[in-house]
């Protein structure tokens, strides 16, 4: 199935829950309502025609300083799906605001979501509702803040021992 057909399929199945679709440089994207994301992911995995059996990546983007998007929802959580059987890909996105940075977890669908969601929480401070093990993944527990947020200065130091700068 080519990317445009996948997006059409998602739109016809979920209607208004698919907020927006676009294609750029051969990559097809659907922006999905937060409440519907788990249903959309499940549909993508279980529908035979789509057959997305792999959650190849889950990450986020902070749009705080993105030219022209400073006022919109601050974060996008980005899911990259791949189908081994059909050899096609799709990108799904969920937009969330900073003061309500909570997305339903996908751990029940793919176990790899466990670590990937932990990393997004660690790096961006987006929480995943229902996550079984919501610890940081890369940083240590005492770390304050979320380093990949655009308002986290790159030169801030948080040494565990020694003087705090």
């Amino acid at each position, binding site marked *: 199935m080519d990317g445009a057909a996948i997006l059409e399929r998602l739109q016809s199945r979920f209607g208004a829950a698919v907020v927006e679709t676009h294609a*750029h*440089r051969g990559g097809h994207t659907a922006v999905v309502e937060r409440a519907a994301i788990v249903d959309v992911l499940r549909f993508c995995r279980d529908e035979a025609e789509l057959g997305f059996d*792999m959650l*190849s990546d889950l990450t986020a983007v902070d749009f705080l300083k993105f030219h022209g998007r400073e006022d919109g929802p601050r974060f996008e959580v*980005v899911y990259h799906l791949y189908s081994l059987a059909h050899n096609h890909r799709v990108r799904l996105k969920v937009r969330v605001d900073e003061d309500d940075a909570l997305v339903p977890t996908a751990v029940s669908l793919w176990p790899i979501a466990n670590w990937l969601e932990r990393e997004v929480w660690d790096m961006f401070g987006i929480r995943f509702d229902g996550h079984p093990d919501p610890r940081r993944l*890369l940083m240590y527990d005492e770390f304050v803040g979320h380093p990949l947020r655009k308002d*986290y200065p790159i030169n801030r130091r948080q040494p565990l021992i020694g003087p705090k700068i």
Partner: protein
Amino acid sequence: MAETTRHEIMLGEGAGTGTGQDLQLGMGPAHPAMHGIIRIVADLDGEIIRKADVEIGYLHRAFEKDCEVGGWNNAIPYTDRLNYVSPLINNFAYASAVEKLLGIEVTERCNYIRTIMSEISRVCDHLTCVGASSMELGAFTVFLYMIKAREFLWELVEDVTGARLTISYGRVGGVKADLPDGFEAKVRTAFKQTREVLDEVHRLLTGNRIFMDRMVGVGALSREETIAYAITGPLLRAVGVPYDVRRAAPHWAYDRVDFEVVTQPDGDNYARYLVRMAEMEQSMRIAEQALATMPGGAINVDFEGRAIDPAAYVDQGKQGKTEGLLLMPIRLSPNLQGQNKPAWDRVNADDKSVVLPPKETTYGSIEGLMNHFMLIMEGYGIRPPAGEAYFASEGANGELGFYVVSDGGDRPYRVRCRPPCLPPMAALHRMIEGEMIADLIPTFGSVNMIGGELDR
């Protein structure tokens, strides 16, 4: 009759399933068998791992954050340090992701160079993985043999890039330099030596009773679980799934060479070993075919003039003595072979807004100097239109993906690396739970954890 428990196998009939008192053992982060720095907190019942918690992040150095503060090409040295056993693949994959975002095509010769150098790197990576994990099982000879073979290949890498490890050879829009003279002959010699080593290792390990006892049936993961954990690369092919990005989405020159996607059905450590051993041969096959069919041929210098020492060339250019320099070939130091102007056009995309001009042009003409400055100065440089792109290539450990987002500026808005060894590490506890603690060593070795790309 009740099934014999593992406890009974070890301690005799009637030993039951265990005492119920688990011992918690923390392995790492500084443990000799942890290949760098990760920590496994294992709950042990006797020698059996009941539950394991894998902690990572000890090598986190903010790769993704660092990429956001420099220009698009400034991330290249950081990508070297992702998978430091096969850094060339990271270089090229990142460069290709940015090229996809820019919508430019690199030259055919560059595609072939990327293919050849990636395959040489893949052999290096597999040699290191198999060598190191056999060493931990006591096969020290194998380690020495394989590191010897890797040395032959690293000499090739050094010839091309000028460095052995932190090579920074890829560029957005091309590569740093063309292949040096006589490269094909050197590759032929190095591959011959590597094949001899692989043959020796096959005779030492494949079928070796001690080795097989430690590897067969150990650390196995089912096909369903491997896919659910998004594991790719040799570990996925070891459960019989013929997924290889080189075949599924051919990039560079992979659609013009013949190779076999090696699979094994069992999914245990031994299957992973067999896949890696067979893949090395396939990689060498790809590199040989690509070298034989590579377009470009010899470098044709179609102008006359005396050769000049590169340092003197730069000095004169800086003093403004540029008259006549433009057409003068420079003699380059061995490590910078292939950086001269005729080579430049063949390995770099024809796009002045992306690719730095060759040094002769930069120092020899005002247009070249302006072109160079426009790409280097802050606020100028490479400026992909706002948008996003995901590019996947087959790293030595599996699908190496780069997701790049641009806001139209001269620096990446977001660079996300999909590290190929994160999914197997997330599933590591599934491979070691229920097995003996000694089995952790070959299993962890077969995962080929590379701290640089795992922790970024």
